[in-house]
């Protein structure tokens, strides 16, 4: 996983509604069609960081398996952060794409 993208992916997952850590990990893996294998161990430090920055809020609840789990939901600040990060990501992808496609073509000879 690219450095710094885990935060963005977690925020994106939470747009669809509150979820607990285990769900978040599986959703990311499933929606990326198992292309993105996240290291589950790094998920919790990331969640802790996001929560301390005020981008997500959490509370204990009961999961679909009838087990206790800590549910995370997006805050207003988190939504704003996601928009900003997504925009930045888009711009970067486009820029990198342009560079790569230009480099792929043979250079035209100028006269």
């Amino acid at each position: 996983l690219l450095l710094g993208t885990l935060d963005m992916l977690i925020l994106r997952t939470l747009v669809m509604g509150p979820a607990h850590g285990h769900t978040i990990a599986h959703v990311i893996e499933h929606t990326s069609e198992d292309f993105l294998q996240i290291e589950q161990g790094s998920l919790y430090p990331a969640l802790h960081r996001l929560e301390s920055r005020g981008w997500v809020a959490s509370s204990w609840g009961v999961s679909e398996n009838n087990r206790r789990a800590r549910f995370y939901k997006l805050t207003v600040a988190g939504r704003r952060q996601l928009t900003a990060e997504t925009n930045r990501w888009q711009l970067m992808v486009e820029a990198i794409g342009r560079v790569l496609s230009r480099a792929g073509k043979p250079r035209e000879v100028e006269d």
Partner: protein
Amino acid sequence: MRLIRYFRRTHWDEERTREIEAHLAHEFDDNMDRGMSPEEAQRRAYVRLGSPTRIREQIWTINSFSGIEAAVRDLRHGCRQLARSRWFTLTSVLTIGLGIGSIAAIFGILDAVLLEPLPFAQPDRLVAIRTVPNDTASMPTIQDWQRRSNSFQSIAAFRNWSPEVRTPLGSGGRVIEVSQNFLSTLGATVEIGHDFVQTGNERDCFQQAVLSGSLWRQLGGGTDLSGRTIELDRRTFRVAGVLPIAQTIEGSYALNHPDIFVPVGCDPNVRVTERGDSDFLVLGRLHPGISIVAATADLKHAAATLQKDYPHMYGGTGVYGHPPKILPWLTVVTGTSTEPSLFAAFGACGLLLLIACANLANLMLARNVRRRHEFAVRATLGASTRQLLRQLLVENAILVIVGSLTGVLLASGAIRFLREARALRVPRLDHSSISVPVLFFVVSVASIVVIFVTLLSTRRTLHSGLLRDLAGHGRSSDSGSLRRTGRILVAAQIAVSTVIVACASWTVASVYTLLHQPLGFNPDNLLMVGVDIQHSSALPAYNAVQAASFYRATVDTLGRLPGINSVAATKTPPLGFAVNQYDFCSDGHIDQCANPTVIAPDSYDITNGYFATVGQPLLEGRDFTDADNAGAPAVIVNQVLAQREWPGKSAIGHRIRTGELNGWATVVGVVGNVHSYSLETAPGPDLYLPLTYAPPTHMVFLLRTVDDPGAHLETVRRLLQSQHGDLLFFHLRTMRQEMSNEVELRTFLMQVAAVFGALSLALSILGVYGLLAYEVSLRRKEVGIRIALGSSQWEIVQLVLRQESRWVIGGAVLGLIAAMVSGYSLQAQVYGLRENSLTVLGGSLVLLMVPALIAIAVPARQVAQSDPMQALRTD
């Protein structure tokens, strides 16, 4: 935010732990759904997540301030470690305190004396101009220098004057006579009133004086100058201006805190229009941007044109034809010898600091070896080498910081002591203190010491085979490189201390020689009373016969006082500085009469019986008699002059020509040499004439008393005053008092050097002894094997001595070479260094080598005496 999290770390740790457990439970559920066995499901869940402890650690780190926390932990641990080994801590703190304290003190003085700018406008443009060889110049010469060169904004003249001073406070005060442009050249500001009236004619006096701020404050201060006067030689001077207190003039001789400034025209004894009267010291202010080198070249040119215009004045051969020298004013203020001595002291303290560092490194080296087990355990428990190094660095930093604080305290004490020790007369010393630059200096030195010492002591301990250490093997067998580090330290320490001990001994020996050399006269029980009879009732108008009979009558009167053995008078007493010189040549070198100034001896006018009174031995011929007063002129020469003029022959009966008589005279006696100027200055050629040939207007009476000479001073003064109430007295002191200034300062220097040398000697002996003893004890196992194989104790001691002393001797040889080099560079400053050098070098070597050899032999004997089986088992 972060702070709150920091304090709720435990809460969050619990929360996240539960959350991770929940995650594992969910994963377990999923795995069970996939049809795994419970054990497998559990295992896979853990594999997927990774170590929960790692995750918790990561979150914990997010919640804490990692750097600071680690530092605090190291600090606490370090303090605990240091508190546990109290002796080690105390020794290290004291060692580093002494090292840093001494260098901080000397830096504080150096900063105040040499680096702080003078309190005048643009002080870097101020210079002193000195003629060769006498330093002084006449007023017309100075004025011509100004006119004929382009480098100087202005050139001023000044001179010491000792009139009888009367202020509302009483009598006394230092007077300096200056040219009219002196204050403006110096860049001093007049705080109250105004500068001297600038007429351009230096003969003008106008009875005006400018006072120093400190004298003005003693006189009551105020801003109103009207009606404020002082009296000099019974003439009234009005106070024209007052200088600010901040602009104190400091220096030596005339510049030693003068309180009263008067125009040169006010001193009746000075002839400011005479080109030949070279009485003045010279201060110049350079034009902006002119360097001293450029000004020197310019002035050389001006002096050359003067030489051409007045060949009789500035001609002459030898040094007299040399152009004047230009020095920065600060050098004059601090004295030419202050700067090199301060830097020498600074260097010595630097060496002491090096010794202290080496000692500290030695102590730590030994301590780290003892702690290898601890390091190994910590490394096995997961501490990285970097963490261990950081731990050591923190421990050393604690030591050095505490040591530096001790050092700063010591330094401020030392500075206060030196400021109050009146013997040490370094100008501007009063300004020195533990200031910001000094603290900055201490911090930088301390940081370097920490890094240096840590690197030296840990280079090997942390790296080599930690695990083997843990197992208890190889504690002494693989410490070869460690031992090499230690031996290099020992050698370096011996080398450095040889240098310090040698230099300190040189200083001590030189002062001792200086104070115990023969003076050429007997200074005990000798009282001096100077009397000026000019314009008094004893001599209303100058009359040679009257003056001479007054002096002779006074000698007779004083000689009859109880408790007085004998009395004589001289124009200038021994060690009296101001000596007259006149043109001179003799029948021994008749060709010199064409150019007589170059070889002029110091000339003394004396009464009969002078030599007997001061205790100067008459080596040949006879003393003056009353018969010499009339008829053919007779003179007495000293040994130096006799040997110079008539080498290998008797001087008696030979003839000399002196400018004082303007004619020839016959030598009737030869006397011993005396130190006329100072203790360091070797006796020069002296010429003695009977007082009656040209009686001066002032004389110094020398009284040889039976008991304490100071007790007779009042009696003598009252007796003379009862005869002539208006006599002026000067030079009222005993010969011992006269010498005490020089003796005090030198004794003080000697004591400082002795203490300093002893201190560094003690430090390095301690260090060398400690390390060598430790080195030898490391060889316990080897010695055990040797004894088991049949070596005798004596053979063991010999072997160890031979092997270990190689480094000691190497260090000593290196130190000797360095000591000789530093001795060579100190030659100019240390009196009699050449004569003492061999004794001193040998002595220093013995002082260092003997303890070092004992430090090897004693532990070697101990090791050799111990039971070989025990030695083999213990290690």
